[in-house]
Structure formats: structure tokens, C-alpha cells
């Protein structure tokens, strides 16, 4: 910038600063205007432009000596009337678009001061167009016209300014450099108060705009290829091309440059061109033309030819043509440096190429497109939709015009429904920031006002749940040709398998597949799948604890969809609805899964989860998808009456953990709360009885139901950090899941009830409520306490008392794990716990250090909770089931 300043006189800097200041003031004042104010100004401006269209066209021709007065007048009319027709009903002030279903509103913010460079080829029309856009968007513009079009542009700016101010626009909203130098442009392009550069013109100017470091709309040169395919309407195509290429003597940069014609129609197309006033050059004439109108050193068109009539160009070159020749057509045999006429020619000279095949034609079009026309415009005439589509895919062009003239077609609004413009964005290929037909939206900063939305929630359960003593009798109603019972050796020994068999209809062929009593491995699952295939099962009965039911879920998945990749399906995810990996829906077989649980804890008979043991990596992998949920759940307490006391305790605490974690989960809802709450109440009341009096049928029934009810809650609200810790710890030290959960539980309640170091993002919750929900659990259990803090303490104490009563070890140390061993395992424990998806629904996001602290708390044993200071009252909304 210092160099630029040094190159300008003080007076010149003061002049330029004055322009920016004036525009800045106008732009600032403009921010107060409403949409109605703006629209009141735009219309008379458009009318003024229309009225002066011919006058401005004449001025442009007199000054630039380029183009055709009639066409320039027409361009001025398009730049006003057509642009107005497009913008008149557009909202460009305040709220411009609303998406109520998404809670998003778009609000317009003006840019402020726009520094606009305009070209020699379309001087006045570009000014008129940009003035209308600027007023519509409440921006001020400083124009810098091409040096050879200064006067006509200045006059166009004056007319627009006068009309705008007369109807209420702020004084100084448009200014125009009366004369300008490259230094002036460089100074203004870098001025701190200029918000945007809108550079319409040659590549040098566009590059300068982009190099300035300012946001810029740089709109540059083209080299439009045209594919004239054999199925096209040839009469229409030839007229359209002539219309377009001769419009304003070819000065529109979207105009046709090289027409690639199918061999079969080549001769007749050239004849049609000739019949309508084109001169077809012979080889010598083409060579001469190329040498004259294209600079052999730069490979670009000669400025002297730009915007000139065909006859004048012929005279320049020394060609003899008829007096009314409209267009010079030069056959070329290739594209690139050896073929000078294959570049952009903003005058009525058109290259043509004879293509022997569609492939060759498209290849040549690609070459032309890449010979200086990337991102700009391409044209095709064809009735073949496949070829049109292919052409669209191949051409790198912001505008791909079909069966219409390139120049007028690209301007938009005449031959098609594209946005009317006088600035063609050429995308990154053209060094531009947009491929748009530049329009009002490019003159705005569009702000998004995004309201908080609630994530959609769900509540999904198996469609049939049969519960209470002898619920297994319901098996009778399920018809099946071939049923495979998946179970473990203990179920056979106790006689549970026979009990189940008795209730299966007699006509069903029943097979039993016994798997080890442990978390399923892939090998075990695949053996089960083999059995299902062998027996062509249409029904699977999973009879056992969580491991057996989980195994059956995965067997069913692999049986129905052998293509399912278990490793891929176990990929981590943050939100079930947005997960990357989808479970297969294509099935080669179909089998009903009936789950009969023989423990009262996991609730696997209703959950969409299955845990698989990855022996190779020493970890457990959780599969989660509602397609894994059993079709039927049978919750019959007769299968748990003989459950050992230790198992009763461990699985019962697992159930409690499910309910408590679902209760405070960020996905908790009134639906899940009601289930979680009921399960907690049942566990606190009946677990000690079931543990101490295993034969108590009521306690066993209630605990069996509690496990199922808690599972319904966490199937929909998920679990939390307790499970993440327990998974990691249980897998590393071989501790049963329920027991591992129990060791963590009091510490996790205290942790979640504290003020989080990091909150979990949870759009469905208003504020942090975990501590309040724990307090409400305490209320429900009648634990007493006045404040939230007291209630949480009482809940922790009650949980500890329950664990004591169940004779569950109260610290990891009590399991005989040495401190050194635990310390050694800690980094891996923390890593695995953090990778576990369970905590993603925890109300408090655990830091890695906090996971370690929790592990150590559990190692040491009992601790007192620290609870968030809560002064707010508890509301029904926060614990909606109460």
C-alpha cells in the first residue's frame, strides 16, 4: 500500500478519500432504509435507464467505437427492465428468507461501499445493472470505468444517481472516477472502507482485484465452445449462433467462439451460415485472419478488432467479402497455440471444427473450454438428452446454454430462466469466487438467525412383551416351521429348555443350539448362524441371560443379512440418527426373534444393543440398532427363581444403573423418565428381598419386570459414563458387568450431581438438571432432605446402603487388585472408557482426567458427593413423570 500511496499526489489521495468518505456516509445512512424505501427508489431508476437507453448507447459507441448502437440500446434495456423484473419482488432488506421448519431466518446485511470496475465492451449497461443491484441491496458504489469508456459511464452513473436521490436515496450513493489510473484503482481496491470489489472486465483487472486482499467478485474472460450435434434443429441453431455472435459485434464474453459440428451435418450447416450472410473462409483466408486479428506474441485477440463489424474486419485483413456479410467463419483443425482462432474473439469471427464422432466433438469442446474459457459459458445444440447431460458434465462453465444463443442466453431472462446479469461468475477455474450470474444476493452479506430446535425423539419398544409368571405359555401363538433355541448349558441342565419346548406348537420342528455361557465371540455367533442356515429357521428363541440374547441378536442379523460387516457396524457414532454406518435392510432370510430372559438385569430382551467380545483386541464391541431389538420379549419370573444370590445382586444393580443413567441422560424424555423412575422404585424395594429371600415370588417378579422396564428406558435414553467406566474396567480385570457397574455407581452419581467442568451439548434440555433429577429420585424413594444437595447425598447414601446389603464389594481394592496393577492399567482404562459410546448421553462430559479420578474413586471406595449449588426450584418439566 505504501508504494501505491507514494505513486499518488496528495491532491489525488484527497480526491479518492473524498469519494470513499462520501460513499461510506451514504452507505451508512442507507442502512436505515426499509424494503419499501428501497423499492420506491429502484423503479424510477429503472425507468430513467430505459428512457436513456438509446442516448447512453450512442454515447458508448461514440466513445468506444465498439459494437452496434441498436444492440447497445437493447443491452441497456435488458440491464434495466429485465433486471428489474427479476429483482422487483425479491426481499433484500431485513428478513429475506424464512425456513420455519428449520427455525432459520436469513437476514440481509449490506456490504457498504463497493468499488466497481466496468468494461469497455458493455460500459453503460454494466453501470445501469450494478446501480440497480446496489440500490436494491442498500450499498453505495464507486465506479471506475474502463479508461476508454469513462464519459459514457460517468453519464450513466449521473442518470442513475439523479433518479435515485430524487426518490430518496442518500446523496453520494454512486460516484464515478472522472478519469482514472491503475494507481487509483489499486488505492481504492485496498482501501479499508471498501467492502467489496466487483470487477467486470479483462483478466488483468480481475487478477488485480483478487490480489488486493479484499473480497472480490471478479468476472473474467470466456472462450465459449459450441457443440452443434447432428440431432439439433439446424435452422434454429444457425440463426441463434448468428444472432448471438453478431450481437453488439460479438462483444459479450459469453458469445460463441468455436462451433464444433458433427461430420454428418457439417457441410449443410456451413451452407446455412453462408445463406444467411456469413462468409466461409478458405484455408488461406483463415490463416490470414488468424495472423491479423490474434496477436501472435500473446495469443490473445487484437484490441483493434474488438467490437468491429465483420466487413470492417475483412477489410483489415484484406479479405474480399460481400457488403452485407455478418460473420466470418474460419474452419480450424485443432485447438491451442497452433490454431490462433481457437481463442476468445470478441468480434464477429467464428471458428468451426468438423468432428468425426461425438467423442471427438466433446473432446474438442473440452479443449476450447480449457483454452481460456474455464468457468464461463458453453453452448450445445442437440435433441439428444444423454449428450446434453454429458456435455453439462464435461464443460467447466457457470452457464451451459442449451439450444439457445450463447450471449443472450447467458445474460439470463430472455431465452431461459437464469438470473439476468451483466457479470458472469466463472468459478475457481476462472479465478472467481462464484459461478453465479452475479445478482443481488452477491451484493449482500446474508446472516442466518438460527433458533434453537429440539431434536426429534423417539420411544421404541418390541411390539409384544409378555410378563408375569408363566408368560412363556404365550409361545403357543407363534407359528413356525423351524425354530432354533439358542441357549447355554446351564439352561439345559436346569430344565428351562424343556419348559420352553413344551410351549412351542407341536407342528414346529425345534432344534437347540447350545453356546458357551459367556459374552459371545464372533466364532460363536458364526456357529449359530450355520445352525440357523442348516435348519432354515424362521424363528429363533433366545433363552438365557444378556450374553445369550445378545448372541442371538447378532446371529439373526448375520443370518438375515450375511453381508453385514460386524466390525463396520460397530463403528463409533455420536447420534444414532446421524450415524455414518447403516444396518443392512436387504435380507436373504427372515426369522422372528423371541427373547426369554433368565436374569433380571440386562433387559436385553427389549434392547437394541448387543455386546460382542473382540478377543483379538481384548475389548467389548457394542452393536446398536433398533433392527437388533427382539420381536417378542417374554419376561417370565419362573426362569429367575433359581438365580444365585450373587447373580441376583449383580444383575439387580445393573438394572438400577440402567434406570439411573437413563433418568439423567441428555436423551431422557417424559416417556423414558416414567419407566426409569418406576424401575428405580421397584429395585430399591424388591432387590434386597429377592437377594435375601430368593424364593419370594413377588420380589422375583417385580425385579424381573424392573429389569425390563429399566431396559425400555435406556433403550430410548441410553446410558452414561457409569457404563463406559464399567465396560473398560470389567473387560480389563474380568469383573462381571453388574458388579463393575456397582463399583462405579455412587461415584458417578456424585460426579454427575456436581458442577460440570464441561457440559454436554444437549438441545433438548434447558440448563443442567442432573442434580435435580437425582434429588427427585431421592424424593420418590422418600429419602428425605431439604435441599438438592441433601437429597443427592441421601441418594448416594441409600445406594451405598443397598450395595452393602447386597454384599457387593465397595471398592476395587477389595477385589484384590493392587494399586500398582491398577495404576499400570489406568492409561488404557481411561482410553477405552473415553472411546466407549455410552458416555455420549451422559449429562456431564467427562474429561480424560475426570475418568481417571472416577476410576481412582472407585478404587478407594466410599466418598461423599460434591453437588451443584442449586437454588432454582425443581419443576415438573425437569422431571415430567413426577
Amino acid at each position, binding site marked *: 500500500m505504501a508504494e501505491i500511496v507514494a505513486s499518488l499526489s496528495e491532491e489525488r489521495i484527497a480526491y479518492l478519500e473524498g469519494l470513499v468518505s462520501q460513499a461510506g456516509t451514504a452507505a*451508512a*445512512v442507507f*442502512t436505515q432504509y426499509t424494503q419499501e424505501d428501497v423499492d420506491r427508489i429502484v423503479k424510477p431508476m429503472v425507468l430513467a435507464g430505459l428512457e436513456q437507453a438509446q442516448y447512453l448507447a450512442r454515447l458508448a459507441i461514440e466513445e468506444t467505437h465498439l459494437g452496434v448502437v441498436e444492440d447497445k440500446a437493447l443491452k441497456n434495456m435488458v440491464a434495466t427492465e429485465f433486471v428489474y423484473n427479476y429483482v422487483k419482488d425479491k426481499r433484500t432488506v431485513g428478513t429475506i428468507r424464512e425456513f420455519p421448519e428449520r427455525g432459520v431466518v436469513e437476514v440481509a446485511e449490506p456490504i457498504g461501499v463497493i468499488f466497481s470496475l466496468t468494461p469497455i465492451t458493455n460500459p453503460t449497461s454494466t453501470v445501469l445493472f450494478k446501480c440497480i443491484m446496489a440500490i436494491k441491496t442498500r450499498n453505495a458504489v464507486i465506479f471506475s470505468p474502463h479508461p476508454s469508456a469513462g464519459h459514457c459511464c460517468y453519464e450513466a452513473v449521473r442518470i442513475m444517481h439523479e433518479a435515485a436521490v430524487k426518490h430518496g436515496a*442518500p446523496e453520494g450513493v454512486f460516484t464515478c472516477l472522472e478519469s482514472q489510473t491503475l494507481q487509483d484503482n489499486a488505492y481504492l481496491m485496498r482501501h479499508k472502507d471498501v467492502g467489496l470489489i466487483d470487477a467486470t472486465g479483462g483478466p488483468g483487472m480481475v487478477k488485480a482485484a483478487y490480489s488486493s486482499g479484499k473480497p472480490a467478485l471478479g468476472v473474467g474472460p470466456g472462450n465459449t465452445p459450441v457443440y452443434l450435434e447432428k440431432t439439433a434443429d439446424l435452422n434454429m441453431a444457425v440463426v441463434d449462433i448468428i444472432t448471438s455472435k453478431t450481437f453488439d459485434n460479438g462483444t459479450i464474453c459469453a458469445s460463441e467462439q468455436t462451433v464444433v459440428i458433427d461430420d454428418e451435418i457439417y457441410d449443410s450447416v456451413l451452407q446455412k451460415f453462408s445463406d444467411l450472410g456469413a462468409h466461409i473462409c478458405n484455408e488461406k483466408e483463415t490463416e490470414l485472419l488468424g495472423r491479423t486479428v490474434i496477436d501472435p506474441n500473446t495469443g490473445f485477440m487484437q484490441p483493434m478488432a474488438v467490437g468491429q463489424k465483420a466487413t470492417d474486419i475483412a477489410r483489415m485483413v484484406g479479405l474480399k467479402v460481400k457488403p452485407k456479410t455478418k460473420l466470418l467463419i474460419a474452419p480450424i483443425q485443432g485447438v491451442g497455440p497452433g490454431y490462433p482462432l481457437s481463442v476468445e474473439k470478441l468480434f464477429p469471427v467464428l471458428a468451426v471444427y468438423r468432428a468425426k464422432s461425438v467423442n471427438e466433438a466433446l473432446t474438442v469442446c473440452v479443449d476450447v473450454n480449457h483454452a481460456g474459457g474455464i468457468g464461463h459459458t458453453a453452448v450445445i445444440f442437440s435433441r439428444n438428452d444423454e449428450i446434453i447431460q454429458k456435455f453439462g458434465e464435461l464443460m467447466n462453465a457457470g452457464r451451459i446454454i442449451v439450444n439457445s444463443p450463447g450471449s443472450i442466453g447467458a445474460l439470463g431472462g430472455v431465452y431461459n430462466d437464469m438470473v439476468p446479469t451483466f457479470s458472469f461468475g466463472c468459478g475457481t477455474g476462472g479465478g472467481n469466487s462464484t459461478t453465479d450470474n452475479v445478482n443481488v444476493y452477491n451484493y449482500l452479506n446474508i446472516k442466518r438467525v438460527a433458533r434453537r430446535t429440539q431434536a426429534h425423539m423417539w420411544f421404541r419398544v418390541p411390539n409384544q412383551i409378555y410378563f408375569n409368571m408363566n408368560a412363556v405359555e404365550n409361545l403357543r401363538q407363534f407359528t413356525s416351521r423351524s425354530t432354533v433355541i439358542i441357549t447355554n448349558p446351564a439352561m439345559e441342565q436346569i430344565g428351562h429348555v424343556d419348559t420352553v419346548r413344551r410351549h412351542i406348537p407341536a407342528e414346529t420342528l425345534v432344534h437347540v443350539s447350545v453356546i458357551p455361557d459367556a459374552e459371545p465371540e464372533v466364532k460363536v455367533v458364526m456357529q449359530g448362524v450355520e445352525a440357523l442356515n442348516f435348519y432354515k429357521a424362521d424363528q429363533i428363541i433366545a433363552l438365557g441371560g444378556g450374553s445369550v440374547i445378545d448372541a442371538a441378536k447378532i446371529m439373526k442379523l448375520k443370518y438375515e443379512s450375511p453381508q453385514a460387516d460386524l466390525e463396520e457396524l460397530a463403528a463409533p457414532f455420536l447420534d444414532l440418527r446421524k450415524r455414518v454406518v447403516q444396518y443392512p435392510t436387504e435380507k436373504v432370510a427372515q426369522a422372528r426373534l423371541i427373547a426369554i430372559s433368565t436374569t433380571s438385569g440386562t433387559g436385553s430382551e427389549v434392547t437394541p444393543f448387543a455386546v460382542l467380545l473382540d478377543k483379538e483386541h481384548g475389548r467389548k464391541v457394542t452393536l446398536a440398532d433398533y433392527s437388533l431389538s427382539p420381536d417378542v420379549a417374554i419376561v417370565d419370573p419362573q426362569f429367575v427363581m433359581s438365580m444365585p444370590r450373587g447373580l441376583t445382586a449383580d444383575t439387580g444393580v445393573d438394572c438400577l444403573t440402567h434406570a439411573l443413567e437413563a433418568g439423567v441422560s441428555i436423551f431422557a424424555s417424559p416417556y423414558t423418565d416414567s419407566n426409569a423412575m418406576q424401575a428405580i422404585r421397584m429395585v430399591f424395594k424388591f432387590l434386597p428381598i429377592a437377594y435375601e429371600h430368593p424364593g419370594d415370588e413377588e420380589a422375583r417378579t417385580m425385579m424381573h419386570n424392573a429389569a425390563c422396564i429399566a431396559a425400555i428406558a435406556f433403550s430410548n435414553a441410553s446410558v452414561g459414563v457409569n457404563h463406559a467406566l464399567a465396560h473398560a474396567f470389567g473387560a480389563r480385570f474380568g469383573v462381571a458387568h453388574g458388579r463393575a457397574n456397582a463399583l462405579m455407581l455412587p461415584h458417578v452419581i456424585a460426579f454427575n450431581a456436581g458442577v460440570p467442568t464441561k457440559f454436554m451439548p444437549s438441545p433438548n434440555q434447558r440448563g443442567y438438571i442432573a442434580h435435580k433429577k437425582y434429588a427427585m429420585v431421592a424424593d420418590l424413594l422418600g429419602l428425605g432432605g431439604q435441599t438438592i444437595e441433601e437429597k443427592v447425598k441421601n441418594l448416594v447414601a441409600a445406594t451405598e446402603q443397598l450395595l452393602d446389603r447386597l454384599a457387593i464389594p465397595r471398592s476395587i481394592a477389595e477385589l484384590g487388585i493392587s494399586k500398582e496393577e491398577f495404576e499400570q492399567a489406568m492409561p488404557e482404562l481411561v482410553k477405552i472408557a473415553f472411546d466407549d459410546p455410552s458416555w455420549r448421553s451422559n449429562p456431564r462430559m467427562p474429561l480424560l482426567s475426570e475418568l481417571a479420578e472416577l476410576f481412582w474413586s472407585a478404587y478407594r471406595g466410599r466418598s461423599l458427593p460434591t453437588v451443584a449449588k442449586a437454588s432454582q426450584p425443581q419443576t415438573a418439566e425437569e422431571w415430567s413423570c413426577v
Partner: protein
Amino acid sequence: MTVNAEWLEIDGERVVQGLQAARETLDTAQGDVVLNFSSVRRIDPNALRAMEKLAGLADGKAVKVVLRGVNVDIYKVLKLVKLTSRFSFLA
């Protein structure tokens, strides 16, 4: 703290004239000059220029100019032309 403040009402329809009067007040002001903009709905480029002039004059005379009741649309205009730092504002 405003002590011996001169209070001037700015008419929404005659902002430039109001600011002209304010400039004259600066010569005799003993303390702050408070301009009540409550009835001004919108300002134009002339008013902005007058405000800039007023700010310059106030700086020269070390007088604090307090604008009262400026609506937020006008405040944004003043912000855009970097005039907010040259005045004090009173709700």
C-alpha cells in the same frame, strides 16, 4: 457526571439545523452539551456531516457532547462512520 449541562432538543425534521445550533452552544458551554435525539428517526448524509463537524469542534473546545435517546438504527449509522467514539451516549 453531567454538571451544568446545556440541553438541546434535536427536531427530527430539522436535524442539520439542530446540530448547527449545538455548534453555537459549544462556544458558551460551561459543561457538557446534551443533545436529545429522541424525536430523530433517521439521519441523512447532511446530518452526518454536521455531526462530524460538531464532534471536531467539541474536541477542539474540550466539550463533551452527550447524545440522548439515539435509536439503535442511527447508532449503527454512527458506528459505521466511526462517530460513536466521539460522542457520549445516554439512554
